[in-house]
């Protein structure tokens, strides 16, 4: 049962490793967007500290969006996707494997880099753990929801902009709970409620999104 899951995941990770530069672009985008904010809103420390969770989360959301089109585009172009769909393995399973590999390649680096960037905004060291945890729980949800959008817009003209229009409204709850977790930790109420909701959202997305994504891929490849 899990054989094809790990096979597809290993293949995607290997492909990503061979084209490391592509992956680093997403990470560089994340870092640059975050670093642009002080230029825009001014370098006043209190203000930066107040907007830091929101800035990091919005930047993570935008970099996820930027990398999403790569999730299926290459396999679509060289016909791999068609062969995978023809295979007898359950579609939702290998779709989940592809999304997991995609998150490890594009989402996980953001999670690891975020605490360092938070220091640039003078965020207290006590909340760095909550920030990392919220991103670790939230960014896979973004990848899962975004995968549905990527499958729906596969091979369409203006696909990138369309993808943004489709998935950004769906990202809003993740953004609210993710940035909210850090804010409530700073405010002293504790981040447990927000993190639990994010965790619940992640489980719900893992359960539902691969099936929606599989249906969308079948429609796109008909």
């Amino acid at each position, binding site marked *: 049962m899990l054989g094809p899951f790990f096979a597809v995941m290993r293949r995607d990770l290997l492909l990503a490793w061979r084209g490391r530069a592509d992956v680093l672009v997403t990470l560089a985008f994340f870092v640059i967007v975050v670093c642009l904010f002080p230029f825009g809103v001014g370098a006043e420390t209190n203000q930066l500290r107040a907007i830091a969770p929101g800035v990091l989360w919005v930047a993570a959301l935008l970099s996820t969006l930027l990398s999403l089109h790569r999730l299926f585009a290459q396999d679509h172009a060289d016909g791999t996707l068609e062969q995978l769909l023809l295979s007898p393995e359950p579609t939702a399973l290998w779709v989940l494997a592809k999304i997991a590999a995609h998150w490890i390649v594009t989402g996980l680096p953001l999670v690891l880099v975020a605490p360092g960037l938070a220091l640039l905004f003078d965020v207290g060291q006590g909340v760095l753990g909550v920030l990392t945890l919220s991103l670790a729980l939230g960014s896979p949800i973004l990848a899962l929801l975004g995968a549905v959008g990527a499958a729906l817009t596969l091979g369409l003209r203006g696909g990138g902009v369309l993808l943004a229009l489709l998935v950004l409204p*769906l990202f*809003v*709850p993740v953004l*609210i709970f993710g940035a909210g977790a850090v804010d409530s930790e700073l405010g002293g109420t504790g981040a447990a409620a927000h993190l639990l909701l994010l965790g619940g959202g992640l489980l719900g997305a893992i359960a*539902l999104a691969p099936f929606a994504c599989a249906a969308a891929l079948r429609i796109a490849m008909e």
Partner: protein
Amino acid sequence: MKTANFDDRIKRSKSLLRFAAPQMFYPLAGTFAPWCLAVAAVLTVLGLWIGFFVAPTDAQQGDVYRVIFIHVPAAWMSMFIYLVMAFWAAVGLVLNTRLSFMMAQALAPTGAMFCFVALWTGALWGRPTWGTYWVWDARLTSQLLLLFLYLGYIALTQAIDDARRADRAGAIIALVGAVNVPIIYFSVQWWNTLHQGASVSLTRAPSMASAMLWGMLVMALAAWAYTFAVVFWRVRSLILERERHTEWVGAELAAHEGRA
């Protein structure tokens, strides 16, 4: 030969389900649409008359509150139409009926329009009442996100040339949106809320004068009738466009040209 038999069978059928065939629904929608539009016109005039001349001036808000006679029905319709759209999308995906997808696509522009009207009239009401056109309040924000969901659906179905793929892709995004609507609604509610509580609810007596309530209900019915009329018209155009290669559309168009 096979299609001819099918056409005959559909025409002789007494089941209501025969109207699931675009060919049968086309004349039905054509019959209903003008009536719905007439009802909508009469109810709009009546509702606006009640709203502007019969309903008393509000003790706290003065005459500004009268915008609710447009605002509230528009907001109701915008949310309800999304549910109906998601319903038709689900029916289409499960039963593979072409007309369901066409209904979903015909509903979307009207829903987006009502959504925009609700936001716009809300902004006009907010300026004198709250002192600002816009606040990042839960209800306003979720209404705005609903508008984005509508726009996403419309953009996706328009971007795909193949009608079958457009139908199904649109249906999936409508359903994903429908699953997300309650999540979005509650998340923004926890995030921030300032909007006055709902004035009308099913479980307790409404907190407004009965003339105001009647004006609002009449306007809501007018919005319903308008939606029916517009959607019937739009779905007729969609049917003609999709079925343009069939014999009955050819006959229909020939008859229409003969009359003109």
